Every structure is written in C-alpha cells, then in structure tokens.
C-alpha cells in the first residue's frame, strides 16, 4: 500500500490520471473504518484533504458552490443562512466527525443514508467533477448517484464540489435515528420551498437504493398551496387533508428495505411523519416571515 500526498489540485488530478485506481481519502470517516477493520486494502490511496482549492465555498451568480473539502463544521458555522445544509451538517456524527467529514466525501461514498445528499437533491443540484488538463464537468444529482455506494465518476476524476441554485423560501432537514447524535439516518428528509418558482421539492434518504425525490407529492403540495391561495397569502391555511395527502404521497415515493437500522414499515411511517412536519414547519415559517415583513 502507498499513500499519495498531493499539495494542490493540479497535482492531485495529474496523479489520479496516472493512477486511476487510487482511492481518494478526505476526512476518512468511511474509508478509515474499512481500513481499521481490514475490510479494504487499496493498493494506492490519494489524500485530498489538503487541497486548498477544495477547502472552500463561494456564491456564484445566484448559485452556491461547496468545495468538496468543506467540512460539516465549516458548513454549519460559515453558512447558517443555508438552513437545510446547516441542519443536515449539525445532525452528522459528533464534533470530532463534523471536523473531519466533508461534503465531497459524502457525495463520493454515495451512501443512501448520507446526510448532505438530500440537501443537494432537494435543491436539484449538481456534482462538479474535475480531471487533469483543466477538464471539468457537472453532473445532475440524478445522473451521479447510481445505487448504494455507487456513483458515475470516471476513474480519472475527483469530486471538486457541489453546486445548486439558492432557493428563496423556507427549507428544513430532518432525520430519524435512535439518538440525538452519532446516528446514521433510519430515514432523513429535506424539504425546500421555492417562493420564486412556486414549487416544493422534497428529497428522502435511507429509504431507497439512492436518495429519492417525491415528484407526485411535490406537485400535490404546490397545487394545494395554489388552491388555498397560500403562495400569495402565506396566512391562508391549508386544509389538514392536504397535509396528510402530501405526507402520504411522500411516503409512497419511498422504496425502503428492512435492515439493521429499521424495518421498511417503520421507514414508511417515518417518511410520513417527517414529510408532514417539514411541510407544516415551512408553512408556519412563511406566516412568521410575512408578519415580520
């Protein structure tokens, strides 16, 4: 086994091109467990956690770009206004894990239970990939995630970051697990309400082979807000049957399995509960903001 320690992105991409089999390590919160337990013995590892180009975030013309090396701790402290991202980051592991775990690592690992992933997916975001020779491409989340722990990166590529359009409106991330910290999601959910496009987007994690969207539920919620006149008047209430209808449709989009963390039946129930709560929080938040304005 050998470890490559590139000093900059260009060097890292050149080495990745020369050694496409090299396994990237960032915060190590997944890969180190495999190494420690002798589950994996890669011939070659490439350390991407000291690439200054990736340890960054920036706003780009209405978009947010999160460098792959951004840790959860930094996302939480430096981007509190990106509420769903901050809430998801806060729900990851412990301070020790949040200080090491990165957005790029979460994307690369492509676990259906990754906590940053539903935030990307509910923003309809994309993953930015780089290869030697200044080759950069963006891939929609839908093209990137292929299955449990499988993504569509080419072997000579590294993840540069994630990008999405900043939405105006309420948003939240919520998660069900056995305790308040150090927990892998039994189910997680990100809801983004976009006041400009008058759409509701919802992403579900840990209840299918990849993080999923619930398109039928999203259309139902947008129509329910229209029917109630709530897009124009946030104080216009939605009938409880619409909240239930939304929660039911979100749950209907999930395709969970039984595993060590929970049963499929429990996960379907969790999706219903998370969805109902997320929509009612969003509606309450719109009322509160309208009153402030």
């Amino acid at each position, binding site marked *: *086994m050998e*470890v490559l*320690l590139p000093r900059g992105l260009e060097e890292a991409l050149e080495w990745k091109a020369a050694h496409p089999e090299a396994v990237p390590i960032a*915060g190590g919160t997944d890969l*180190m*467990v495999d190494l420690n337990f002798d589950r994996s013995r890669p011939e070659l*590892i490439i350390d991407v956690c000291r690439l200054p180009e990736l340890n960054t975030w920036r706003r780009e013309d209405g978009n947010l770009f999160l460098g792959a090396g951004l840790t959860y701790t930094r996302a939480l402290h430096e981007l509190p206004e990106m509420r769903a991202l901050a809430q998801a980051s806060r729900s990851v592991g412990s*301070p020790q894990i949040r200080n090491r775990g990165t957005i790029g690592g979460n994307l690369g690992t492509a676990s259906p239970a990754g906590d940053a992933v539903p935030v990307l997916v509910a923003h309809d975001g994309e993953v930015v990939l780089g290869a030697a020779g200044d080759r950069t491409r963006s891939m929609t989340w839908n093209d990137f995630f292929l299955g449990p722990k499988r993504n569509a990166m080419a072997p000579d590529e590294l993840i540069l970051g994630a990008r999405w359009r900043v939405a105006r409106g309420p948003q939240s991330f919520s998660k069900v697990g056995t305790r308040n910290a150090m927990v892998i999601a039994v189910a997680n959910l990100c809801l983004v309400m976009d006041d400009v496009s008058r759409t509701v987007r919802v992403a579900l994690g840990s209840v299918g082979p990849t993080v999923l969207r619930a398109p039928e539920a999203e259309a139902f919620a947008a129509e329910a807000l229209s029917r109630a006149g709530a897009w124009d008047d946030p104080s216009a209430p939605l009938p409880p049957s619409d909240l239930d209808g939304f929660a039911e449709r979100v749950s209907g989009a999930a395709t969970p399995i039984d595993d060590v963390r929970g049963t499929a039946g429990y996960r379907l129930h969790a999706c219903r509960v998370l969805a109902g709560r997320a929509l009612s929080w969003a509606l309450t938040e719109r009322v509160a903001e309208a009153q402030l304005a």
Partner: protein
Amino acid sequence: MLIRVNLNGELREADVWPGASLLFALREDFGLRGSKNACEQGECGSCSVWLDGDLVCACLVLASQAHEREVRTVESLSGTGEEGLHPVQEAFLEAGAVQCGFCTPGLVVAVADLLDHDPSPSEAAVREALSGNLCRCTGYQKIMDAVSVAAERKRGSDW
C-alpha cells in the same frame, strides 16, 4: 512511509505502514498511549486529539495525513497545573468523574476543546460537545459536574 509530525510541540518522525491510523502511530510508533484504542470507527471518542487545532478521532485519520501537520494529544495537557495536572483533569478528579478511566483521556481532550471555544457552555452545549465520547461505566452525570467545575475555574483564571 516516513512521516514527520509536530507532536505536542516537538518535531517527531516515524516510519509507518501507509494504511495505519494516526491512533496506531501515536500509540505504537510514538509511544504516546494516552489516546485509547476502542471502537476504531469514530464512535467512542477515546482517541480524541487535535489535528491542526481541530478536535478529531485519531482512529479516523490516516497517519500519513498528519505528515507535516500539528498534532496535540492528551499528554500535552498535563504539566500546566499544580501536581502536574491540567485544570480539566483536576476537575475530573474532584468531581469523581472517573470510574474505569478508559474514556477519560478522550473526554478530557473534548472538554478542554469545548472550554477553549465556549468558556460558559450551557448544559445542552456540553451534551452536544461530548456527544462523540462514550463512557460505558455511564458516569455521565459526574462528567457533567466536572465540566461545570472546570468551566468555573477557567472563567476565574487565564489557562
């Protein structure tokens, strides 16, 4: 592979297996056994150290990732107070926050890190800050007491 680490303020070198964790290197190559090896998956916090000033689990850092970086371990804390103990260590003793003692080094490091960032943490903030440190004797209440003692003492001094 040869790694060079600024370890507790001293430049140290070791020839490590490339797949070794920083925890393994600390204990087996550098002879610092304060950081404990328990879960090896970042769950228990017994191996908490600082990497470039950030609190991390040494079991989840590849030893070579610490090359040319600064690592501080629990051993760096002793020697600052009376009887050679750090105020957080003294607080743990006074509050009786030690049972079997295995989790103690990791907790001491995590508490010192918390008080460096927040000298007057609320109870919720303490619980959050220590959520990655497990005590299987379940001595958490005494540990909470120790944090209060240490925080009070920190506010009244300049450590």
